């Protein structure tokens, strides 16, 4: 099978600092990739390259067989992106915001309006869809963002910490949605710091640290390699080289005076 996303020796420098040091990755349709790594590991740089925002990198990125440097518009129309931290122009209403997004993806007005209504209703936002989002809670904004990323029915969905602020029921909804989208043949690129969620939703986990991939495989494979531990423990072992116990011991020590 042809990979839908293929990164070949991707290097990215910010000034003298090398953020990505040769990433190689082949992702296949229908996979849910849990993309994890400590702060500053290069996760969001990878995401920005995949979204076609950063063009000055070395190496090759193919999405659906197309080169992202030359065909970024076609690729952008196939990608759905849900940013983290609920950043949106919150003086708009959900309908206004989603309408703007729909126009940018050239979705037919009628179709867009039907989809929006259905999706907002499904997320329980029907009653507030004409209210400005500045009064919305974090979770409500996150729901609107998730809808904005899915509205044009993309083949590839990039989720950056999509569960932040969501209540327990919505978390379940989104997790189920992710597996249903994957069954439907969509490729999901899931960036998160919540190891327990990544462990459950993704069928392949890619761990990067200091700009290189240091582990790649299903959770079962990682457990076999690293001993039967939780993803959290595997993560700290691989990225920190030691147990997190030390730091917490030091913190406890502060009381001894």
């Amino acid at each position, binding site marked *: 099978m042809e990979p839908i996303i293929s990164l070949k020796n991707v290097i990215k420098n910010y000034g003298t600092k090398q953020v990505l040091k040769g990433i190689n990755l082949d992702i296949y349709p229908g996979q849910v990739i849990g993309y994890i790594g400590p702060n500053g590991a290069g996760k969001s740089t990878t995401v*920005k390259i995949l*979204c*076609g*925002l*950063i063009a000055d990198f070395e190496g090759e990125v193919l999405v659906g067989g197309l080169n992202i440097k030359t065909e*970024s*518009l*076609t690729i*952008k*129309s196939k*990608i759905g*992106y849900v*940013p983290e*931290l609920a*950043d*949106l*122009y*919150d*003086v*708009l209403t959900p*309908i*206004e915001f989603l*309408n*703007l*997004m729909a*126009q*940018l*993806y*050239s979705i037919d007005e009628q179709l867009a*309006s039907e989809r929006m*209504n259905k999706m907002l209703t499904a997320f329980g936002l*029907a*009653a*507030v*869809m*004409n*209210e*400005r989002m*500045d*009064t*919305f*809670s974090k979770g*409500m904004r996150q729901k609107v963002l998730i809808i*904005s990323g899915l509205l044009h029915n993309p083949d590839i969905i990039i989720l950056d910490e999509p569960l932040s602020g969501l209540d327990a029921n919505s978390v379940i909804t989104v997790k189920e949605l992710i597996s249903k989208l994957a069954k439907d043949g969509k490729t999901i690129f899931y960036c998160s710091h919540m190891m327990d969620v990544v462990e459950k939703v993704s069928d392949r986990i890619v761990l990067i640290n200091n700009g290189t991939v240091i582990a790649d495989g299903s959770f079962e494979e990682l457990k076999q390699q690293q001993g039967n531990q939780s993803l959290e423990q595997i993560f700290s072992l691989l990225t920190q080289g030691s147990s997190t116990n030390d730091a917490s011991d030091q913190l406890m020590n502060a009381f001894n005076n």
Partner: protein
Amino acid sequence: MNFIDKFLVKIVLLPTTFYRGLGINTLQLKAILQTKITLGDRTPTGIRAIKRANPKKPTSGVSFSQLFMSVFLGLFFMTSFYFGQNYETKLTLYFSMFMFILASTLMADFTTVLIDVRDNFIILPKPVSDITFLTSRLLYIIIYILKTAIPMTLIGMVYVGYFIGLWPLVIFIVMVLLVTLFTVFLINAAYIFVLKVTTPQKFKTIITYFQIALAVLIYASYQIIPRLISKSEMAGFDISQNSWIFLAPPFWFACAWQFLTTFSGGFIMVIYTVLSLSIPFISIWFVIKYLAPSFNQKLAMIEGTGEEQTTKPTIHKAPKKGFGLTENITKWITQNGAERVGFMLTWKMTSRSRDFKMKVYPSLGYLGVYLVLMLLNNKGNKGRFELPPADSFVYIFIVYFSNFVLITAMGYLIYSEKYKAAWLYYIPPVDKPGKFILGSVKAILVKFFAPLAVAILVSAYFLLGVASLPNFILGICNQALIIFTIAYITFNQMPFSTLAGNKTKGSSLVRGLFTMLIPVSVGSVHYLIRDFLPVVILLNVLSIIAIWMVNDSIKNKTWEQINVQTDW
């Protein structure tokens, strides 16, 4: 904290034993009070919040600049001592100005002073008793008001003490405190009124408009009042001759001062004195007893986190099919896709973003004041108002002067506190970002210039006749052309994509002067050719063609020509 704050804190914390007797933890009280004052010192409020140039630069010394500002405003009150033939008149004017300015300042700042949502999760979860917290809040408000009211009247105090006497000064200070008390009551009443007629959510918007109106009003009075001062007939004026003056509280205070300094003036003066001494206390008692309880509750909702919003039953409005006139204009002047998105986003953001409004709307007001002054300045032979002749410089000036507001508005277009939301431009498949920019600039023109242009044309037609129209049309077309051209040259960022105040230094001043030069020079040329109708018409045609061409150039701006902000 500066020495004034330290001094005031010392003063209000003096009765330690008294506080302890009430069950107040004085250590906590001092800590809370000092923190609040430090916070206040670092948070720009009121009019200064509008002018805040660089939010990334830490603000400090606010209370010091506030002090200077207050003293300066107080200097302005001194003009009242030039008017009128007696102290009742002079002081009535003085107290009126004082009340008005104090009320305006406090009104605008009070929300931030009175309620601080951070209290809810910083102080309340700590072991602080209600009475300690309440007292800290009360003392803070007292310090805040004193810090505004005393500097404002400082120059007045010096004047009264030096020219009139020591005992009149004492009475004057008492009167100032009473007027302050009464003003606090008025503000409370105004707040309660506003909260009655509107929802707490809209309250902030109203305060924003109030602050904008205040800025414009102060500007207007600085422009207009010096023009009135020369009228020498004001000196012989006696305010007590007015039969309705007894209704005005400043008059009571002025009469009370007069009575208490001279102990003469008859029965009516005694009544005014009693009124002055009692009304402030009665009104404050009234506020505490009847208005305060529900008032505080409502105030606390103003800056609510919005969590309560989710549970609030909301009327499910049917999805609106567009928004009438605007929708039609949009469809008519923009192409589908990115251009329309840029237009709609700008249209909505400029009317809803508090930040943008605070920065641009005052200059709209200044422009209005200035235009009126320009027209009124032209006095006819007998001092009566006449319109300037049709070929006067004034008209060309008016048309081209309005350009500065548009340039200002456009200058702020790239800024937003929510700059991280700009990801929405970069993610979708949009080939040329110039489309967003074109839509955005069109929105600015339609929103801030079209109404003025229509008003100019209509009034020109009725007041100056058809013959004046070609020149006005040329002026208006040139405005649009200038704006599009400046947009093409300077607009290298997406709208609302940069943190406000994050301006590139150095070249911006030169560039600013340069952009101002464009309307000035085009206007001058226009002035020279204004009488040659064929030339005016020819230039009109050329101007329209040029607009069309510049439009195209903006639309074709590529991603390479844009500063893409990827720091989200």
